[in-house]
């Protein structure tokens, strides 16, 4: 798995032709996405170039402290980004931050403890990035759904509270649906992987000239690790966030009215 290829700036520049195609489609069909496509292209270039240099420095320094610092920054930015999707959930930042941190720590800890990957920057940085990215998406989707469900199910939740149920019991069906929403996308894409689409890691390794068997095995490990991290992040985020809809006297907040 130690193959490497050289990609020139010219090759990257040539791929911009497809960005131009996307912008042209948007302009032709008046989708009004040209500006967004431009911003996305520029941001991806700047962000990936910056992280590329950061990873290069971390690999050369070969110290785990820098890895942890990078992952911590990713967790914080991931929680801030996911908070933007979970607008209906009061104070969603802390549940998201804790969810991403636990998902990253547990998943990376397990893959290292089980001897799947070595505890070195070369493995922890890319795997950690994938884990946090997928955990962020899953917890954002879960909390977005949680916010909608708490509003839609307000009458049923309050009727259950009126029976003397705790907030936890009253919110349980809602939390279950939110958790399912957060996990279902990755579960579905894992079901169809290899049939309908090739996942990124496998494509990258094949392009880099790796043995297809190695590419598939590594991809499987990552898919299974991501399933675990997505489940942990959605579980922790929903378990912590639903409480923010209730007062200590087990009353549903007015924000759901």
């Amino acid at each position: 798995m130690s193959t490497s290829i050289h990609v020139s700036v010219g090759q990257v520049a040539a791929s911009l032709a497809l960005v131009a195609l996307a912008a042209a489609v948007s302009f032709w069909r008046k989708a009004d996405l040209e500006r967004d496509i431009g911003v996305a292209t520029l941001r991806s270039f700047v962000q990936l170039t910056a992280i590329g240099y950061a990873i290069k420095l971390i690999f050369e320094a070969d110290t785990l402290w820098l890895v942890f610092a990078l992952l911590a920054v990713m967790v914080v930015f991931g929680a801030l980004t996911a908070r933007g999707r979970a607008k209906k959930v009061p104070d969603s930042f802390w549940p998201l931050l804790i969810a991403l941190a636990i998902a990253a720590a547990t998943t990376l800890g397990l893959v290292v403890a089980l001897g799947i990957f070595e505890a070195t920057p070369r493995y922890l940085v890319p795997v950690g990035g994938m884990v946090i990215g997928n955990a962020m998406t899953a917890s954002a989707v879960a909390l977005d759904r949680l916010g909608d469900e708490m509003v839609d199910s307000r009458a049923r939740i309050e009727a259950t509270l009126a029976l003397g149920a705790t907030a936890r019991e009253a919110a349980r069906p809602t939390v279950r649906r939110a958790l399912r929403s957060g996990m279902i996308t990755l579960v579905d894409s894992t079901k169809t992987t290899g049939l309908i689409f090739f996942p990124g890691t496998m494509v990258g390794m094949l392009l880099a000239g790796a043995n297809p068997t190695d590419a598939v095995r590594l991809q499987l490990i990552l898919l299974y690790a991501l399933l675990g991290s997505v489940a942990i992040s959605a579980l922790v985020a929903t378990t912590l966030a639903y409480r923010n809809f209730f007062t200590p006297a087990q009353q549903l907040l007015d924000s759901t009215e």
Partner: protein
Amino acid sequence: MLFELRDVSLTRGERRVLDSVSADVPIGATAIVGPSGAGKSTLLRLLDRLADPEAGTIAYRGRPLDSYDPLALRREVALVPQLPALLEGTVESNLAYAARLAGREAEAGRCLRLAGLDPEFARRDVARLSVGEQQRAMLARALAQEPAVLLLDEPTSALDHAARDAIEATLAHLRRELEISLVLVSHDPEQARRLGEWVVRMDEGRAAEAGPVAEVLA
């Protein structure tokens, strides 16, 4: 006295829903009447501590409402909301759930009969019930907790005359035979006359009048 409200106020957004409400609700059957938007349902929610007032005090049996454990209070003072909101599953599972929360065994057949439903309804999926049947299933679920007080928000609003009469007969029976106190929100003064012994008349968030039904609704 069952409930004593003193200068109770509550605002929702820009709107003053309850404005210095002071009223007594004695043990027995009390009707809270008034036009839509008068604050009747909000008042009922406060009595079950589903919300707290911003100002003023509420006492239940002489003790401040907020000195009770809210969960224990709600198992003793059962609120049946206007809109049916049963849990997914069968009628029986809903009754069993409510009974379990109150630490009791559900007598589904008896509760359903009291609420004017055939015991055969126990096996029905709640998603297949009409709104009127759901409303009665909600009452049966509250009765499964064997509460001391029933707070009823427009309990017959979705029912035809025959079903309404059956529910009213049930409520009168509960009051008479089981000595359950009733606090009933109704927009219908005639229903208040039929069921209430005491009346609190609400208007624009204020308790305009309170007293025996014969005096207030004369």
